[in-house]
């Protein structure tokens, strides 16, 4: 299981456009990928409703996990989206 810890830098947090971009990128992948607040329950990163429901704000840290073919590349891409200001 590969994982990345990222601090969300977007002013709106992981909502609105950053959330949509994040979920769209996750949904393209064939493997399962989850996102969680640090220490929290992981949710399906391909679900915009679950990702919004995490209510991640600017400056908060999330943990993204994936397993399988292309997991590292996918996590790099998602980490870049989540940490973009």
């Amino acid at each position, binding site marked *: 299981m590969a994982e990345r810890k990222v601090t969300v830098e977007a002013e709106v947090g992981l909502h609105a456009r950053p959330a949509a971009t994040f979920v769209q990128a996750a949904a393209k992948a064939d493997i399962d990928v989850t996102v969680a607040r640090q220490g929290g329950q992981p949710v399906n990163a391909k679900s915009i*409703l679950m990702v*919004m429901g995490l209510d991640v704000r600017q400056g908060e840290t999330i943990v993204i996990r994936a397993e399988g073919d292309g997991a590292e590349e996918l996590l790099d891409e998602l980490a870049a989206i989540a940490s973009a200001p």
Partner: protein
Amino acid sequence: MIVAGVGVSPGIGHGPVYVLTASVPEPPEGATYVGEAEEEKARAHAALEKVAADLEARGVRAGGEAKDVLAAQALMARDPGLAVGVDALIDRGTAAERAVYDSFGTYRDLLTSAGGYLGERAADLDDIRDRTVAVLTGRTMPGVPDVAAEPYVLVARDLAPADTALLSKDVVAAFVTEEGGPTSHTAILARAMGVPAVVAARGATGLTPGVRVLVDGAAGTVTVEPGEREVAAARRRSEAREQALRAATGPGGTSDGHAVPLLVNLGGPGEVKAALANGAEGVGLYRTEFLFLDRKQPPTGAEQETAYRAVLEAFPGGKVVVRTLDAGADKPLAFLPAQGEEPNPALGERGLRMFRVHPEVMAEQLDALARAAEGLPARLQVMAPMVATVEEATWFTEACRARGLTSAGVMIEVPAAALRAGDLAAAVDFFSIGTNDLAQYTFAADRQVGALSALQDAWQPALLDLIALAVGEHGRPCGVCGEAAADPVLACVLVGLGVATLSMSAPSLPAVRAGLAGHTLAQCRAAAEAARAQSTAAGARAAARAALPRLAALGL
């Protein structure tokens, strides 16, 4: 008749009312289907996909901000978690339309329980749900006319981006909704379109279709059947106001050069951008509750430090006043169980009183603040809420100084603190008056009780007297943060009373700046005296206005 709400997009709109009635009925509970489960699922998925594609297409036609908003909504219709929920319900025999309705309901509850920004997204979800149910039950969604002989005032319980995206200024004179807040899509898109909007206008959908109304998107009012003169006057006022606001730039102060730094109230780092756009010179109240509420574990020192530094970095030359945690009683924290039942939460263990019980929480917060300010040019000031006595103030400022926090102050929210500001002054570096709580405790009127709002009027002469006492002659600077500072008329009066800085929500800054710049310090003092000479709130307001001659010309 006037319907009052919250103005979220300024300007004047005048036209006939068009009431949009949501008319997709809830599918009956327990509805079942005949045929195969797989076919029913396919029907549900096809409906969701149709709605998603339609939302996307509208977004592409509308372009701009609406495109992003609608693309995100299309993602919601295509949500894999939602589809799993729908399938599970269909497997248990539920008809597709009810399965869709219930699955959306699960997520709706999740968003509304979070409140705030997320709570306002619940309306978006309802719209997608209704559109899908309409497809499944063969109904057409109620639409909004996108051509009109005369621009109309669109009135609805709430508006979805799909409704408003294809509208323009040529078709809509104003938006009025019963629900929604400043961050609802109605507000965002109305501002982007330059159309006046009033939200949270209770009773608006009861307006007779076709009746002419005058909407003031700055004041938040909807006047039914206004006279011609009234409309013309409102337009003139609105234009004068816009002009005055555009013309007023730079640091706050009176026309004769008495500086009054205009600061912003912040609820989190996300609000910094709007503050800077409106010319905030610093932060007069940084509420820190957002870090603590709705959490099972307290935030770590490092997490706090990041949130504090984000704001300090945004105001390199200015001051940033951080208020320590103001929780307890009506805002309980999951990780700090209440000491016991409190019959009057507003009079209970809140603010600094809670720190007396849990000093470790204060220690962690002050440590994080001290670390956040290290090496930054911003002037960090720290203040405690709900301070009533000199002993409390001393306890807090000593804790601050022990950590190298050089400017420690207290809020004046309790009448006792206002009455004895002279004694408190020896223990602190500065004061900040919280007018909302000061009014609550002065008039023994709960802020949460709408029926008592007249007693929450900051123009009450008794409140003005207490503010004058708090400002006093003790030599410590005293600011005001609270609704009172956001009223351009009252702001002049506060400056006349000797208040050093004014702190308010970002959108209020330009009007206050313009009002102050239109008057001399002597005029502000005269207005303060005139207001305090009155015996009623209405009298005080009228007397102050009469003493501030430029306000009317500025449209304020």
